[in-house]
């Protein structure tokens, strides 16, 4: 795609930024434009959203591979918190007035404990944690307070942040939405988030996670299999398909602990596994029974900690693991826990769906921000506001990437009803990060002539679909974009290919 002779989309948006910067120079809007520009060069921002206690902070930690975000059984995350890459450890509070205040912090059992006592919570727009973690190089993770939280204020913060009303641009480029089970509210929320963006409502930048997956099967050893079955069902559900691309079951706690398991914990688990079978069986029946003072030589305190770190399922899993593999080291257990947790599948989704599209997703959110700036400008300088808005329009219309994104949106959200074959062709053609041969659905060894023929046939085919009398406007647009995409592949095939591809 980048071989496209026209300017890369990011550069186009950058040009719009320059125009905007010239227009707003010296005004209060100037810093906002700077922020938009900076954002284009920054990491992809992925928000982690979902209901209260869905396990958002825990999952964030798992993705970072470190216990950073504080987690608790009671409501805990109160402010939108950004975790971004930085060379130094630093926490800053950004107020609604735009002012930043440096925040002192401690680490309690690894988790950050922010000292925001002196600040008014309502005045803080977000906390920004800068951390030198390699996991944060390409993505910035944003932790949000729960939706449908009992404290209405916290929910409000999340909805505000995710810009559920039309007037505000969203701060996130993509979202990982956590749901315990697919709940009506979850779906509503997903839908609303999708609604605002350049391309309109869109599943192109969202994946869903069936969270706390170990609990779904009541903590039984086969719990994750159960969770996989359920997320597969969701994934094939038409409504869910219109809201997000994929649904992955993840046990965040298992992943988090797997990635941070200590030797002493592994030791304790091995001792535990050596408990006589009938006693052990009884202990593993229930959390309270597990902490029964007389049941084990391990201190109750230690057992509580194990439960905290692993949950009932995690403890059961580790014991089974140790029993079947005799000498399990912390390293062995770590690997087994992470593998069981389903985290890899989520990482795969981020790598396959978000990262290859990072530039266009960022460009898209940047345009929304610029549009909002144009709106703000309207009252003071209508003429320039109009000029800016027109430029934004032009930029959006001329970038094929946007057209493709919009196509994805139309198809995936179900506005355009492709048949099964068309849909398959669409996903092959537009799958990010794959080579021309694969996109054309041809053998990787196919020669140029075959490929060109395929591309041309594609153009023909989609023109025909598009001119069918039944096709409505959206369908015609979608078919046109498909045809265009084949066309651009055809053009690429004419050019000598750079070496190495």
């Amino acid at each position: 795609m980048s071989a496209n002779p026209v300017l890369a989309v990011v550069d186009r948006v950058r040009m719009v930024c320059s125009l905007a910067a010239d227009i707003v120079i010296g005004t209060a809007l100037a810093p906002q434009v700077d922020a938009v520009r900076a954002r284009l060069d920054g990491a992809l921002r992925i928000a982690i959203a979902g209901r209260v206690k869905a396990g958002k902070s825990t999952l964030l930690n798992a993705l970072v591979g470190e216990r950073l975000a504080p987690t608790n059984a009671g409501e805990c995350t109160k402010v939108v918190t950004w975790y971004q890459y930085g060379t130094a450890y630093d926490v800053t509070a950004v107020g609604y007035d735009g002012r930043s205040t440096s925040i002192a912090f401690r680490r309690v059992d690894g988790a950050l404990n922010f000292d925001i006592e002196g600040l008014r919570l309502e005045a803080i727009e977000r906390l920004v944690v800068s951390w030198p973690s390699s996991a944060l190089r390409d993505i910035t993770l944003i932790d949000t307070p729960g939706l449908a939280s009992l404290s209405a204020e916290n929910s409000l913060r999340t909805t505000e942040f995710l810009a559920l009303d039309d007037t505000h641009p969203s701060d996130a480029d993509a979202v990982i939405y956590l749901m315990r089970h697919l709940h009506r509210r979850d779906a509503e929320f997903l839908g609303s988030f999708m609604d605002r963006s350049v391309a309109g409502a869109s599943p192109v930048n969202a994946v869903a996670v069936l969270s706390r997956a170990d609990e779904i099967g009541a903590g039984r050893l086969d719990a994750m299999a159960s969770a996989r079955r359920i997320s597969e069902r969701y994934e094939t559900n038409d409504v869910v398909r219109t809201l997000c691309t994929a649904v992955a079951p993840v046990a965040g706690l298992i992943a988090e602990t797997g990635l941070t398991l200590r030797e002493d914990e592994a030791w304790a688990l091995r001792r535990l596994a050596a408990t006589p079978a009938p006693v052990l069986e009884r202990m593993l029946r229930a959390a309270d029974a597990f902490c029964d003072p007389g049941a084990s030589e391990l201190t109750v305190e230690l057992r509580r900690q194990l439960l905290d770190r692993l949950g009932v399922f995690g403890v059961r899993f580790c014991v089974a693991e140790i029993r079947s593999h005799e000498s399990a080291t912390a390293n062995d257990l770590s690997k087994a826990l992470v593998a069981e947790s389903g985290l890899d599948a989520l990482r795969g989704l981020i790598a396959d769906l978000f990262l290859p599209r990072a530039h266009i997703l960022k460009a898209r959110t940047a345009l929304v921000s610029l549009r909002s700036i144009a709106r703000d400008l309207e009252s003071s300088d209508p003429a320039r506001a109009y000029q800016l808005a027109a430029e934004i329009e032009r930029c959006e219309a001329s970038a094929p990437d946007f057209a493709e994104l919009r196509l994805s949106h139309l198809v995936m959200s179900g506005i355009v009803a492709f048949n099964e074959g068309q849909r398959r062709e669409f996903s092959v053609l537009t799958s990010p990060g794959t080579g021309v041969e694969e996109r054309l659905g041809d053998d990787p060894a196919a020669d140029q002539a075959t490929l060109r023929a395929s591309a041309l046939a594609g153009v023909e085919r989609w023109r025909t679909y598009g001119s069918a009398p039944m096709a409505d406007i959206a369908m015609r647009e979608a078919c046109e974009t498909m045809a265009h995409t084949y066309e651009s592949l055809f053009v690429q095939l004419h050019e000598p290919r750079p070496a190495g591809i």
Partner: protein
Amino acid sequence: MSNPNLAEARPIDIAAAVDAVIALATDLGRADFVHRLTVAAARVRRPATIICVVGEFKQGKSSLVNALLGQAICPVDDDIATSAITLLRYGAEPHIDVRRRVDDGIVVEQIELSALADWVSERGNPDNIKAVERVDISLPHPLLANGLAIVDTPGMGGLGAGHAAATLAFLPFADGLVFVTDASCELSAPEAEFLDRACELCPNVLFALTKTDLYPAWRQIAAIDAERLRAADNERPILPVSSMLYGTDVDPGDESLAGTSGVPALLEALDTAIIAPAKTLAALRAAAEATGILDQIEQQLRIELDVLVDPAGAAEIVARLADATAHLDVLRGPGARWSLLVADRVSDLSNNSGHQFRKAMRLVSRDMEDAIELLKSPEDWDQLARRLQTDVAGTVTTVFVGIESEAQAIREAVIDLIGEDSVDLSPMSARRERLDVMSIWTDKGVDPNAKHRGGEQLGSALVGLRGAQSGIIMFGMVGRFLPAGAAALMMSNPVTVGIGAVFAGMQLADAHKRKIAMRRQQARANVRQFLDDVQFAIGNEIGEVMRDVQRGVRDEFTERISELGRTYSDAARQAQQAAQQGGEAARDRIAVLKSTLERVAQARRTFPRLMPS
């Protein structure tokens, strides 16, 4: 005379006392009394009480029902499980009926327990495509033998949604509610809202915090929830339970684990909060019936005794009895004033209810049409669909509540009318207390529980509804609004199925005008279809309930009048016999009568005084 004291009335004693009266009536050959009292005694032992188990989906409702029964009856699954309302109640033999809506009627089919999952679970009956309205399970279970009927409901997706409203609408008819939420996290906002509303509508709401075996932090969660309840001024005990540790799959050897399950405490709470009060109420009713019957028996015995002691008065007494019997014959006849009153008022009620219902539905319909014109986004539609459900559910409840309370009013009016017609009906000689005809209508004025039941907002109108026939009918209605586990797939109601899809993914603001108009048209059509369906179904139900009301009132009064008639005619016959007796035989008979009267007096002493004399 003071009102009966609830605390003093012990259902067990009263049941035994009623048994004594049954024995007496048997000895006297009064099969009619025996029948009535047997029913009343059975009701004391097994008062019909309905308890609904509700909560968001997957909170462990079905597991809890199974744990309460100690038997794996309701299907449980990791994925959405329950898709239809399941009613479990007592039966001497295990028996399952599936009630299904086919075309315009209800089809009842008997099934095996092993096939239950094919009908009530999401797996066997996804989205309730089999249109199961309700599954009735009868079990010979000791818990159910107490009169408890337990209702397992499909989980609600988002308690703010329409089916939550429908469930709330049903609550006036339930005796109690077990609200289920698991210990994985604190109450969500929709859960908390639902709970608040439910507590207003139903006096007995038990709060079960489930899955305590799985969540080490359950105590913390319980504390947070308790705090929330306190803040909402809705304090109540939180009952932590683990269904896993109790019941079906617990190994019987480990008593101590089952003991920590919290299930026994929940059973006890059910007993004190719901079963015991229901038994007390039934006991008071039974006591009133039995006392009324004792009055009649006593009068009959005394008349005979009078004649034996003073044969000269026999002629006058027999004449008066003949008068009274004739009067009763008139009362029993089709032309009796009360009979006409029942016919008139029931037909008025029928017209009014139908009219009111249609009017309310028209309002709903108009309101919807207006709102559809203003639809901007698919989310708007969702909200609208929910409002539609809520409104319809509310309308339906209002109608049935109205019918129930009017039926009660009709009964009372009949009692008054008969009282008026019978002022000089007493066959008694001047020396005796008059037999109070009114005492044969035991129910009037016997609602000792009035102040304990019914939410404040609903006032006294609902008193007596619980356990009423229409309660069961409401299940059917709720069954149709409670669209099963479909919630999970967001097709949470018959309306969204049609229209949510119409609007899905569509940004109305952007789309083509013509297309929007088309979709609005479609939406309107779907709404109308839904309202028509409801109207038709409810219209039929109203008709049926009305016939039941009329038949019920008529049968009841005719029966009582017949009983009294029989008492008079027996008395007359015995008085005539007595007048011809003398000497030895008379003395023997007097002794028998005296000892029987002693039995009556003894029996009477075992009942609390119920009515002002």
